């Protein structure tokens, strides 16, 4: 009883400062650390959007308050911050978990606390099997593999090499690719890896080059790895097509890889080619608006990663609006009913069986030409 009173006292002390009419949204992102180039634009996007919402009078007449923690992509930190968001900040919903590891570490907590959670991480394991309180916005790694293999099949490619990063993203996507590759009549004849901090991949690429019959190479991975792989790829004189993953879908990849980036193919969201989309493309207004807003607000080029946060935030705000309340359970129910939402990743229609709501059409196949993204005609 005494403890209860003390706890209540502490709780009122915390709540005493802000006005009562506020909706608290939490977030824990990899703002620093190895995945900071994902987490940093995510954070900036969320902050920009919250400002925008509040300037327009908030949601249902209530202002939004955003609490962001930096987990540095460390799952254990993420888990502690998730507890903090739930217990101390008492948020009604959480966006983020930049990395798959951080996301998976937090999932049980949100399931237990019954607070809706929208992850910004890639792996298919986050929403398959479906978890009641967990949603996600980015395309899955499995979809990236499928999109790539679909394109290869169209090109008549049947024998490929793979070089994968051993970080979480690379390992997970490699596994997904190996799982689905058979469906497309394609065979993986060389399977190499590299560490997340490696600075030279010519030995692995030399081995791939010396494997008979290689017609294309896939590189699952993110960070500096794919840029170095791309440069080394040209260095050792590999001339078959190189497919990167959606993990490199930011302008900095082209800058880092330089001329070597030309000819690289990758599946990515429409955001990257916002200005090149035909005017009748239904996604065009959404992606152009976000691109302009983000670039004006931060002075940095837009990336698809910030786009994941954009989608998550808008779906969440829409759900709160539809629910007419900030009750976590009501928000969850409305999130699941998201239908026909046009985001930067594509058209989202969720259901109790699908907490992602995207299909393969949401992915565009791009090729880098003259240092810029171009759409490959389907």
């Amino acid at each position, binding site marked *: 009883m005494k*403890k209860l009173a*003390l*706890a209540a006292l*502490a*709780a009122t002390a*915390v709540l005493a400062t802000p006005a009562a009419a506020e909706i608290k949204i939490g977030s824990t992102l990899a703002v*620093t650390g190895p995945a900071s180039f994902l987490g940093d634009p995510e954070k900036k996007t969320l902050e920009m959007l919250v400002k925008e919402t509040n300037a327009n009078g908030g949601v249902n007449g209530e202002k939004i308050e955003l609490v962001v*923690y*930096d987990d540095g992509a*460390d*799952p*254990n*930190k993420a*888990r*502690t911050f998730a*507890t*903090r968001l*739930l*217990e*101390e900040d008492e948020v009604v919903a959480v966006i983020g978990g930049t*990395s*798959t*590891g951080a996301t*998976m*570490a937090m999932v*049980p907590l949100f399931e237990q606390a019954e607070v809706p959670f929208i992850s910004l991480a890639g*792996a298919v394991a986050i929403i398959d099997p479906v978890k009641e309180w967990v949603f996600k916005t980015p395309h899955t790694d499995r979809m990236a593999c499928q999109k790539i293999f679909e394109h290869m099949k169209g090109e008549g490619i049947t024998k490929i090499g793979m070089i994968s990063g*051993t*970080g*979480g993203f690379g*390992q*997970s996507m490699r*596994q997904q690719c190996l799982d689905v590759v058979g469906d497309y009549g394609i065979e993986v004849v060389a399977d190499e890896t590299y560490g997340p901090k490696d600075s030279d991949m010519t030995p692995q690429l030399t081995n791939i080059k010396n494997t008979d019959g290689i017609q294309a190479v896939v590189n699952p991975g993110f960070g500096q790895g794919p840029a170095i792989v791309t440069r080394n790829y040209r260095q050792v004189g590999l001339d078959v097509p190189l497919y990167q993953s959606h993990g490199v879908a930011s302008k900095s990849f082209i800058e880092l890889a330089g001329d070597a980036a030309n000819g690289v193919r990758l599946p990515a969201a429409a955001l990257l080619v916002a200005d090149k989309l035909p005017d009748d493309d239904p996604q065009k207004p959404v992606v152009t608006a976000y691109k302009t807003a983000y670039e004006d607000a931060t002075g940095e080029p837009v990336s698809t990663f910030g786009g994941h946060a954009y989608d998550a935030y808008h779906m969440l705000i829409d759900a709160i609006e539809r629910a007419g309340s900030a009750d976590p359970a009501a928000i969850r129910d409305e999130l699941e009913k998201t239908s026909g939402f046009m985001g930067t990743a594509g058209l989202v229609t969720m259901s109790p069986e699908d907490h992602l709501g995207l299909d393969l059409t949401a992915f565009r196949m791009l090729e880098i030409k003259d240092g810029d993204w171009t759409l490959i005609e389907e």
Partner: protein
Amino acid sequence: MTRPGMKTATLIVLIVLIAAAPLVFSGTYHYRVATLVFINAIAVTGLVVLIGYAGQVSLGHAGFFGIGAYACAIGATHFGVPPLACIAIGAVLSGAIAYAVGRPILRLKGYYLAVATLGFGILVAMALTNEAQWTGGPDGMIVPSINPRGWFALAGLKVKTAVAWYWLAGTVMIVGAWIALNLKDSTSGRALRALHDSEIAARVAGVDVTGAKLQAFVISAVYASVAGSLFALFNQFITPDAADFLHSIELVTMTVLGGAGMVLGGIVGAALLTILPQALTVFQDYESVALGVIMIAVMIFLGRGLVPSLANALRRRPA
């Protein structure tokens, strides 16, 4: 104060702190952070034995922490080992490995020993990262867990899971501290401290130097392993970062910052470095700078660590 008095005093201070801390807690988040403090403190107590008593450095103890953690994760997931039994399995495994690698490694001195232990830790972390079919790879794996709430219910008490873990981890930490304190005054403890002061002198005085070092290494490995197992069971999720080089460094920093020569020092160091990052998040980008500055400042101004230096200062002041 006599030595046994010192021992009792340390234990009483710890028990009082653990019992009193919940009075200022306002939610399970605080219980969670405190539990992490206790778990880190267990690993650090082992390092007090190794660094403080025996004067040997290890930059690879997170490797044993990782072995303990994955013993629970893999044991329960792949072999159906009951969650509590895995602590013992991890401890035996870590002890055995420490015994095997300890012999050649402990012949090395100073920075050579540092690199050898570092290499050992990196090898463990690498195996955990690469063997994804067993360990889930870098994204980690879920750990089937125990819920100590049930034991409290048996005693007629109803508490939250986080609270139950707080008392469980706190108790294990006290037991760990008690064993380490007793060790200090035992024959082998005295041998270790002789070794710390001068290895050659100890050898001349007839101390089995190799045996004593190996003993300290094995004991500290078991402490780290138990801490790792508890962490996995408590956190319900584990990644190879647990065995990472940076975690090894973190454990050593906790030990030395608080004062490697004293059990209480290690525990204070663990508390400081577990709570500080939580408190420093308000500084955002300046968080790591602040943490680094604190580390440097403590080592420069309180060279022997926080607790021994403060205790010294207090003792010098006339009562």
